């Protein structure tokens, strides 16, 4: 028996006692967004009801308490990543973090200058949020975007790594774990190559940080981003981590990110304030810290083990079915818990709708990673993604559900 008690965990999540279409909810869409435990909602509520004011703006008691709460949240998040307080910037989501760096690198004072002949490297498995900002940066500057392709089993094709990441590469952005395929990438190999050619590195940790212990500074990368809503925190908060944020010029201008403002020009505050223009995501940051505390108390390794068991159960179960195939690695090795699958003869949209009728929530579509679908020649997939609150019964329900879907659509 393991110390991780999933039934106790489930009790912390009010929504899990809900019914959908007369069935108990089976929530297998945490890679889109996770549910929130009482503890997180409660931490945010107490903060807002008792200690709320704007932050960094006053000497009165509430404003001091709010500032304390907000900055303590930053310290908690930093500790969760093994990082330092001033390396943490709160954004509204991970997408803002990618755009922050993409725009800052084009602003006066940028540590790199991008222009025609320069290259930005990504991979074919990126979420649109770690792809489109670089496409736009390339378009604005005349730089060229290049990418690593995928192997048939959903891994990065490293055979042309040295060509894609080369002396002209100024920045290499890639995901830690793919949201569509579940693939975990070899960060060390990719970073080693980037260092050889002097490229900055940016790792998308959106699908890793919620699910496994990540010591961010030890990855050796320059930037790292993730998002709160996929790790038990409220929507509306994300994080940019940077090794040396003070080397980066600002992105958005406004209140709080400044030092001296004159009509004729302004100077800017040091990081992290420099990158938090305007009133920040105050109570959301407090919620994110409570989420980190919740995850830490359970232990990230225990969570990872729990999810790996569920992923194995799901992969084994699908393998035993006829007419269903998985996109991406089909073992739990170097793999997250998101499992994309295709049911022969039934469009993913219909799979998702029919499963919903059984109370089972999976996501269908291109999962904001359209190039991966194109690479594997499917218009879309269904994706089941589990988290700490899912149990073996959820996976059983899904597997039985898939069989029922096949029957309903007459493909079995």
């Amino acid at each position, binding site marked *: 028996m393991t110390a991780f008690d999933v039934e106790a965990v489930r009790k912390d999540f009010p929504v899990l006692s809900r019914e959908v279409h*007369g069935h108990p909810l089976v929530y297998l869409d945490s890679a889109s967004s996770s549910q929130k435990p009482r503890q997180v909602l409660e931490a945010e509520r107490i903060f807002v009801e008792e200690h709320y004011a704007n932050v960094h703006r006053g000497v009165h008691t509430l404003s001091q308490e709010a500032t304390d709460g907000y900055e303590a949240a930053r310290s908690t998040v930093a500790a969760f990543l093994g990082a330092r307080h001033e390396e943490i910037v709160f954004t509204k989501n991970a997408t803002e973090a990618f755009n922050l760096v993409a725009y800052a690198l084009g602003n006066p004072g940028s540590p790199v200058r991008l222009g025609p002949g320069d290259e930005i490297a990504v991979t074919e498995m990126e979420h649109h949020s770690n792809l489109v900002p670089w496409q736009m940066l390339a378009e604005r500057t005349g730089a060229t975007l290049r990418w690593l392709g995928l192997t048939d089993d959903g891994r990065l094709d490293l055979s042309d790594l040295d060509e894609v990441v080369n002396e002209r590469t100024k920045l290499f952005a890639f995901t830690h774990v793919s949201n569509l395929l579940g693939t975990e990438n070899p960060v060390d190999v990719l970073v080693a190559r980037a260092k050889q050619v002097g490229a900055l590195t940016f790792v998308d940790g959106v699908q890793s940080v919620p699910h496994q212990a990540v010591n961010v500074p030890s990855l050796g990368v320059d930037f790292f981003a993730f998002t709160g809503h996929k790790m038990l925190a409220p929507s509306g908060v994300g994080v940019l981590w940077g090794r040396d944020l003070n080397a980066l010029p600002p992105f958005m201008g406004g209140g709080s990110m400044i030092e001296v403002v004159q009509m004729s020009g302004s100077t800017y505050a040091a990081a992290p304030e420099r990158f938090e223009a305007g009133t920040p995501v105050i109570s959301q940051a407090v919620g994110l810290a409570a989420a980190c505390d919740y995850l830490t108390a359970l232990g990230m390794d225990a969570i990872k083990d729990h999810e790996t068991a569920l992923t194995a159960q799901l992969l084994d179960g699908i393998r035993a079915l006829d007419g269903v195939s998985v996109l991406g690695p089909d073992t739990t090795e170097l793999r997250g818990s998101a499992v994309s699958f295709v049911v022969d003869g039934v*469009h*993913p949209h*219909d799979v998702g709708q029919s499963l919903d009728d059984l109370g089972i929530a999976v996501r269908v*579509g*291109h999962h904001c990673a359209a190039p991966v679908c194109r690479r594997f020649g499917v218009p879309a997939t269904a994706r089941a993604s589990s988290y700490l609150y899912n149990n073996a019964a959820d996976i059983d329900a899904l597997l039985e559900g898939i069989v029922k879907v096949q029957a309903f659509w*007459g493909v079995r």
Partner: protein
Amino acid sequence: MSTADTDTMYQEIILDHYRYPHHKGLRDPYDVEVHHTNPTCGDEVTLRVQVLAGLVKDVSYDGQGCSISQASTSVMTDLLIGKPLAQALSTHEAFLALMQSRGTLEPDENVLEDGIAFAGVSKYPARVKCALLGWMAWKDATAQAVAQTKEAS
């Protein structure tokens, strides 16, 4: 899979049109061909129209997608082919209104025939786009065809 909900969404009529689509396949002659996609799910349709003397002479199509998008395009061809353009456009409007009604409109079987089966789909905003894919393509292609005729005259 026999809850009330499935029944509203996946009526037998829809499943029939999905399994045995009407008028499917691209045909000649045609005035205009368009290609529409639903980026969120990858559904696509290529659709041709021929408009002659104020009549919807032909609508042919090819595509891939979910049951809703395929069935609704099939239903549409039944409803529009051979009809006067004005009537076809008002049928289009009636279907659009139904789909945007979030389950609150009682569809008129005289106007929409098999199309009334989609009343249940209108409760599912995420699927409304599927149901409208073919219809939007037809509207677009027809507008272009009419514009061409005007230019030519």
